[in-house]
């Protein structure tokens, strides 16, 4: 211990004051970085609205939302065909991904041995991290020909909502299985043991105890998957095509909201033209739809978290 300081504590106090001013600045900078994320949200809303607003000077809002003909070349902007196409593909993807994803989650959480789980889970996550352009290529080169072989699609038809929906389903399967499995593993062990204790089999425990107990987590996973499917772009652009047809047959080619934005961006739409503003107008619809779906998912997650700690 050195005792050179005359009055004990005088030095440290002085140094602390100077240091704290610097720390206030640092704290402000850190906070500013957090504010950037808020600015991004504000930026998204403001740019969508300001760039999309001129569009509604040319096209009435009601016609835009309810019109059934989307032919930008003829100035006909009724976005029903795009919206229905997005919903078709999200629907097909959900039909593919929900049984696969929840089934895989049940197997990994209730049946699989630990070594199997440790190997398979990262492999499935590889599928989740696959660039969607790769899946689009896969849909065109492999899924569509396979559908033609089994006679679902007529020969020579390159684009279909069905093929795009299947590939998007493959894309969201690992997302659903991974989140659902987390929810299932969070179900307390005692609940399973209680069921086993009264003679339930693994199937009964899985379907009557674990699945209901994890239901809000599983629902959140499914809803997030749907949101991802609605916003999916590249696989859909490549596999479903670029023809905005309002159709009730999933084997037809369709153009989703996202595919339309890509189709216009690929060319040279000059700023201020109705085509340019139209991508922001459909962007607003896409943003609102996905945001609404995500908020539903957040509700499920919140309920799920409050049940079991």
């Amino acid at each position, binding site marked *: 211990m050195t005792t050179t300081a005359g009055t004990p504590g005088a030095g440290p106090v002085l140094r602390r004051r100077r240091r704290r001013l610097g720390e206030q600045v640092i704290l402000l900078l*850190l906070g500013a970085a957090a504010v950037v*994320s808020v600015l991004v949200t504000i930026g998204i809303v403001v740019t969508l609205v300001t760039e999309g607003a001129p569009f509604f000077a040319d096209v009435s809002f009601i016609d835009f939302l309810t019109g059934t003909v989307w032919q930008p070349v003829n100035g006909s902007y009724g976005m029903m065909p795009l919206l229905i196409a997005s919903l078709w593909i999200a629907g097909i993807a959900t039909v593919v991904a929900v049984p*696969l994803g929840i089934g895989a989650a049940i197997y990994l959480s209730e*049946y699989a041995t630990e070594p199997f789980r440790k190997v398979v889970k990262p492999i499935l996550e590889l599928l989740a991290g*696959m660039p969607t352009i790769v899946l689009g*290529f896969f849909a065109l*080169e492999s899924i569509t020909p396979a559908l033609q072989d089994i006679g679902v699609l007529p020969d020579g038809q390159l684009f279909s909502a069905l093929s795009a929906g299947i590939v998007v389903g493959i894309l969201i399967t690992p997302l659903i299985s991974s989140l659902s499995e987390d929810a299932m593993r969070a179900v307390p062990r005692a609940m399973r043991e209680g069921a086993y204790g009264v003679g339930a089999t693994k199937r009964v425990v899985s379907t009557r105890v674990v699945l209901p107990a994890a239901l809000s987590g599983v629902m959140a996973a499914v809803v997030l998957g749907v949101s991802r499917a609605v916003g999916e772009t590249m696989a859909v652009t490549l596999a479903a095509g670029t023809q905005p047809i309002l159709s009730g047959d999933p084997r037809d080619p369709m153009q989703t909201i996202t595919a339309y934005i890509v189709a216009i961006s690929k*060319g*040279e739409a000059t700023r201020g033209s109705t085509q340019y503003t139209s991508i922001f107008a459909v962007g607003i619809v*896409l943003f609102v739809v996905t945001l609404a779906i995500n908020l539903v998912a957040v509700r499920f997650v919140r309920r799920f978290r409050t049940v079991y700690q």
Partner: protein
Amino acid sequence: MATDVPRVADSAAVRPLRRKRPRPADALFHAAVLSAVLIALSVLAWLGVSIVQSGWATLTWDFLTDPVSSRASRAGFNSALRGSLVLMLLTFAVAIPVGFAAAIYLEKFAAIGREQLLSTAYARQRRLHEMEADGTGGAALVLRRVGVRAAFAWSRIGPPVNRAVEVNISNLAAVPSIIYGLLGLAIFVTFIGLQKSLLAGGLTLALLVLPIVIISSREALRAVPVSIEQGAMALGATRWQAVSRQVVPAAIPGMLTGTILAMSRALGESAPLIVVGGVAFGTQVPSVNPLDANETPLFAMPLQIFDWTDRPQEAFQELAAAGIIVLLVVLVLMNAVAIFLRAKYSRRW
């Protein structure tokens, strides 16, 4: 492990009660859930095999070193590789400082509750009164008065503001990537007036991965025990010293792991880049100097693959498949680095 599935049926006490043959419904269910896993795995295998089959022959050294060309026989992937490299550098340079700073703020400073903020504000007020009593005046005193006002105001609005920021970040992470493209087009190209270039694309990708970087960095920071920080503060460190010299160094491997995974997402993104820059390729070889990024047209691996896939001729499909192999190899390498980092530096506290 606490989360392990109980295997009650396997334990000796229960075995006599178990039926020797499983009921058909049980066996069927077992087969069904197992086949869900196997279907997912076999699709992945199918994807791998079909891409390697159609791209393997095209994947030569020349393919990696040749620039882009409209003739399939001469087209190479070099321009796309260079473009993706610059995009990653730009994304890294923007997303890391902003993302890490935001994560540190939200995890270590925003969690401070209302009571503590209020007590800090009162402490500042006491010091102000002391200074007033001493008779020290001038600019310092005015500054201090403003500071006290701000501290009280922040103790009221701070916690709800911080919570709103957190909700906002988790929502941002789920916004479709193409919306970020529209944002980048409106802000960087139309408003700021950048070229439809690598710079505009890289900045857009940085905004896209920012929420992912923040979320994963926060998880890494959370994994560091509070006792480390408390120990430092007990020895006289201020909160910032404890965080910057103890917590962040302990969390940095985890933060980098999450960042690399976020970057691998950015590397595969094409939709936002198409919206920002279109798919119009020049013939020039893009510069890898990030300072030239605003003058360099948007080249990127996924964009090049999209352009090739979009053409009807079979030769271009083979080029696209070869490009996909390269892209996937790079992605696997990035993931391997992330796994290595996690394995080498992760600590159990």
